[in-house]
């Protein structure tokens, strides 16, 4: 066993895990908010995230074709594409809710869930079809910016790229902004009221439909931002990109306590770190007997264990069941 190597990569693995974890946290927000309000696993959220990634790459590729990419400051461009990704994904999430979930409100819980799976599958192929017709390819690459790829060296074995820092900072900023929105504003209060008790909130004069749409808008926007950041960080996107991160992010949401914003962050980080360690270390520790692929098995096992032993998650509260 090469302990020196294990130790040497430790900081780097932590950094990898944090970046991944924040990504999961951002996606998890969409699941957590929708679940909090509608008790629905928005299965299509992983595709909302993926669409955000495609919005980013389309804008960048268009700018590249017109030569604008070099004329603007990369950070300005980044903020612009994040905002655009948020806008498109947010609106898409609202549309999905209107078309595929709202008509099913009040139906048994399985019904909207199945519809959500349908939306997820539909969107995957829709994007694939669109990109096939538009670019004759559906594996797309983010143009890279030298400024983002610059590496900051801390020690001989520890360095990280500027874009990793961007992902962490942007995610933190959005998480705090959202937490503020939900806990400190009137809108947030309305969202919490709808989550707690829809009929009562409605009696108190809250427009429940509007609040649900807003929840989807906010959750979708966070997913869209995550999609753009994902593309910038890993510079590749395809229509099926969303599926696995989506499930992982849902796991993160459950891990942290679904319906709980700080919980999404904690769950995302725990899962991201666990996964990074599993993928980087398993093969080294077992002499290649078990490889990086077992990281997914890790993630799902955690999901099962958490659901069985602590179904309310790490930060979740005990809630009274509605009988």
């Amino acid at each position: 066993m090469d302990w020196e190597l294990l130790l040497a990569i430790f900081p780097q693995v932590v950094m990898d895990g944090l970046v991944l974890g924040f990504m999961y946290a951002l996606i998890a927000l969409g699941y957590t908010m929708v679940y909090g309000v509608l008790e629905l696993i928005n299965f299509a959220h992983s595709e909302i995230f993926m669409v955000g990634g495609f919005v980013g790459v389309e804008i960048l590729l268009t700018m590249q074709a017109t030569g604008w990419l070099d004329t603007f400051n990369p950070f300005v461009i980044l903020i612009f594409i994040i905002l655009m990704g948020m806008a498109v994904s947010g609106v898409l999430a609202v549309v999905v809710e209107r078309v595929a979930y709202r008509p099913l409100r009040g139906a048994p819980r399985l019904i909207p869930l199945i519809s959500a799976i349908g939306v997820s599958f539909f969107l995957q192929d829709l994007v694939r079809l669109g990109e096939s017709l538009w670019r004759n390819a559906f594996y797309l690459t983010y143009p890279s910016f030298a400024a983002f790829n610059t590496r900051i060296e801390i020690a001989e074995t520890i360095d990280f790229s500027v874009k990793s820092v961007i992902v962490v900072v942007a995610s933190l900023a959005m998480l705090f902004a959202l937490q503020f929105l939900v806990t400190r504003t009137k809108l947030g209060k309305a969202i919490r009221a709808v989550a707690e008790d829809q009929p009562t909130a409605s009696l108190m004069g809250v427009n429940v439909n509007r609040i649900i749409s807003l929840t989807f808008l906010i959750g979708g926007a966070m997913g869209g931002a995550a999609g753009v950041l994902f593309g910038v960080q890993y510079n590749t996107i395809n229509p099926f990109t969303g599926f696995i991160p989506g499930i992982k992010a849902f796991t993160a949401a459950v891990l942290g306590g679904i319906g709980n914003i700080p919980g999404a962050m904690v769950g995302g980080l725990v899962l991201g770190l666990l996964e990074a360690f599993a993928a980087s270390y398993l093969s080294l520790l077992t002499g290649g007997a078990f490889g990086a692929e077992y990281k997914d098995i890790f993630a799902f096992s955690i999901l099962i264990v958490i659901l069985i032993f602590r179904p309310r998650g790490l930060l979740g509260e005990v809630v009274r069941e509605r009988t």
Partner: protein
Amino acid sequence: MTLLEARGVVKRFGGLTAVNGVDFSLDEGRIASVIGPNGAGKTTLFNTFTGIYAPDAGDVRVGGRSIVGLTPDRITTLGVARTFQNIRLFKNMTVVENVLVGMHARVALRLWDVVGHTPAFRREEGRSVRQALDLIGLVGLSGKEDALARNLPYGDQRRLEIARALAVGPKLLLLDEPTAGMTQGEARELMAFLRRLISEFGLTILLIEHNMRVVMEISDRVTVLDHGEKIAEGPPAQVQRDARVIEAYLGRGRAGAAAP
């Protein structure tokens, strides 16, 4: 003989104590009622009796046997059946099917009997169906056997729920607001029916009721809960005069119902 006995039952939800140290006992062949303002913990107490909630402290015994920690279906097989405050029928199943589900625990068949359609299956299935039809007749739903539960009028749904509960073959029947939404006449009819159940089938009945007239008329004993605690207990006439009971009802009358 005491059929149902509870000692020091406590049930908490997070910071809220829904039932706080309630003692309760009910003798065989009697009708008792639990009353109290909304949110007093009546349904929660019911749920600890039927195993939907396990009490955080205290003990519940049915026929001398502790049921704490048993699953609701096990408790049902001990002879406890219930109805629900907000009618919980199997809406997309027919009337006869609803009643047949109630007999589930009494069907002694192996999987092979079902798949192989053995004589035992025919015998058991035939017996179940006959009994179900009898029960449907008893509650006055004859002729509606094939109707879907969700298509029944409200009153029929209440009757069906009782038939379904009777199908369990209970010694103790717990009814959660059985007259809710009924006219006074219908309520009276129902009470007569309950009396008949006691005399003909030797049942013991526990009610949660809001309809005071019904409660006072039918109950042998009345228990009053408020804020999860028992504030009074005794024969109807005595409870009616209890100062704390009057305060609990009138004092809250204006403030309206407190969630949850």
